[in-house]
């Protein structure tokens, strides 16, 4: 006999981290990311046209399946007659390069400072954590806009700016990890064995926070790409005529009112797919690699 009873306690006293718990391997997101990466690498081969040169005579051609579209420009053309498909393909390259290098930059700075801060404690810890607190008070996008206004827009500057804005998020999480690792047996043994602080930090602590750093990096990839697109959209990101997705959307805005939807919607979908995939992969990795990572 089975009796239904109202629940008295929820089955899963869920910490926020367990929120998007995905059971299986996120195949579709990984395939999407791989596709975007391959497209980025082979952009020169894949793109049917030069992404930066168009002909005004061909401007505002709709995608092939719409009336007035042609197979010559599968996804239509933009306000100066450039091929949208080719620009999307080269845009993947911009997003990938900026996203990955900015995450690597932010990740390495944040991880190093997080380890130093967490392991050494005291004065170094205070400095790093106070700066982190102060910088985190600024919304990431506002901070990035401010920096972009100072150094001026270029692809390299954007990477530098995003790294500068996002390392604080790394530092805080990694520091928390290091604080708990410090109490662990193997670190104590290393101290007893007479290892120098530097050896302990880089030989013993670093390998143990790499998992967290990878998880965080995957999740950060989505955030960084959105920020890059927003900066480009606002005109302080990747400078024209480079085909960045955010920039394409800003350009496409003018055509939107007369119904040229493909100029904004298509790059938007590309950004969305990439960010969603990165987030889903990151969540899966978090559960897989690092159930302890509770922040962010």
């Amino acid at each position, binding site marked *: *006999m*089975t*009796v*239904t*009873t109202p*629940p*008295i306690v929820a*089955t899963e006293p869920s910490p926020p981290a367990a929120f998007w718990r995905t059971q299986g391997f996120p195949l579709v997101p990984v395939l999407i990311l791989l596709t975007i990466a391959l497209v980025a690498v082979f952009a020169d081969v894949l793109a049917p046209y030069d992404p930066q040169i168009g002909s005004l005579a061909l401007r505002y051609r709709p995608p092939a399946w719409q009336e007035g579209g042609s197979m010559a420009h599968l996804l239509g053309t933009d306000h100066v007659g450039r091929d949208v498909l080719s620009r999307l393909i080269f845009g993947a390259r911009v997003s990938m390069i900026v996203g990955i290098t900015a995450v690597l930059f932010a990740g390495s700075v944040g991880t190093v400072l997080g380890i130093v801060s967490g392991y050494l404690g005291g004065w170094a810890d205070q400095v790093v954590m106070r700066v982190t607190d102060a910088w985190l008070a600024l919304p990431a996008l506002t901070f990035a806009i401010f920096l972009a206004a100072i150094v001026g827009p270029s692809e390299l500057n954007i990477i530098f700016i995003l790294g500068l804005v996002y390392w604080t998020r790394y530092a805080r999480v990694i520091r928390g990890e290091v604080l708990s690792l410090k109490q662990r047996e193997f670190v104590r043994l290393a101290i007893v064995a007479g290892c120098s602080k530097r050896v302990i930090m880089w030989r013993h602590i670093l390998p143990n926070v790499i998992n967290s750093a990878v998880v965080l990096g995957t999740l950060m990839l989505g955030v960084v790409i959105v920020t890059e697109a927003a900066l480009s959209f606002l005109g302080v990101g990747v400078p024209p005529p480079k085909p960045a997705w955010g920039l394409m959307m800003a350009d496409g805005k003018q055509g939107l009112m007369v119904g040229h939807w493909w100029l904004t919607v298509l790059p938007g979908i590309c950004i969305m797919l990439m960010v969603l995939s990165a987030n889903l992969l990151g969540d899966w990795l978090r559960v897989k690699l690092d159930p302890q990572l509770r922040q962010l």
Partner: protein
Amino acid sequence: MSSQPLLSLENLSTHYVSQQGARVVRAVDDVTLSLHAGGTLGIVGESGSGKSTLALSILRLLPPAARIVGGRMIFEGENLLDKSDTEMRRVRGKRIAMILQDPMASLNPLFSIGNQVGEPIRVHEGASRASAWERAVALLKSVRIASPETRVSQFPHEMSGGMRQRIVGAIGISCEPRLLIADEPTTSLDLTIQAQYLNLLRDLQREHGLALIFITHNLGIVAKMCDQLAVMYAGQVVEQGPVSRIFSAPAHPYTRALLGSIPRMTDNRQHLTAIEGQPPDLSSLPPGCAFAPRCPMAIARCRVEAPPEVAIDEGRTARCWLAVPGVEATAATMRSNVA
């Protein structure tokens, strides 16, 4: 005492089933117990022995993973397992009430004491806000809270731990239930406050003719409070009967071990005797008697076959092969052979 018990559990079993259904934990396993109106039953066991699950089973307020899989629960002549969820809700707080062990966390920090004490009265008896408030004042008085008129409009954080526990008690008796279940109600209280609280519970019981189920791991409290005792081990009642007779001549080796270092009434020791070994993992119990691996008197049969619940004398049972007539003698000879 009337022959019809107030509450009788017949072969009650409650299991926890993991999500895939792979692991089954027999938290309450084939429990048969009864309690007469106005009586006091102590349920004793180590943590994880299933005593809290048993209490929640009676109220049918189990976590979603837990299911009552068999048995009957007859309360005032009705089987509680036949009741709908709504009918069951009308039993809770009205006819059967329960006091939880943590007085600090049991009260909602956002509502006044009067609101929380009067709540069951309003819900079950449809009392107006004003009359529920008056009843709340009277209830606070009956649990001996000084100046109840001011206390009633205060909030939980303004109260001490002992006061809060008495307020929880007041909530328990607010609708004059027939049965009150107290799940380790004093573990988090100071020693002197504990004694006061136990006295209060006893007085309330007498005044209102309450039946009381007292869940504890403190045998001193059982000696003071209860007339019946049930000892639980690994989800089963291994021995039950009148307190005085169990204390003078325990039949089950586990009970004997518990009584081996019985804490005196004034003793605040929370832990039971050091019994060798670990409490068993309820999801993988040994084939025979669950206590056999820790039992100093176990015989070969204990490890292969679970003992039945046998009547020892009037109103007293034990689950042990050694209590089965004839087995003791064989065991003694076997032991002497080994020696």
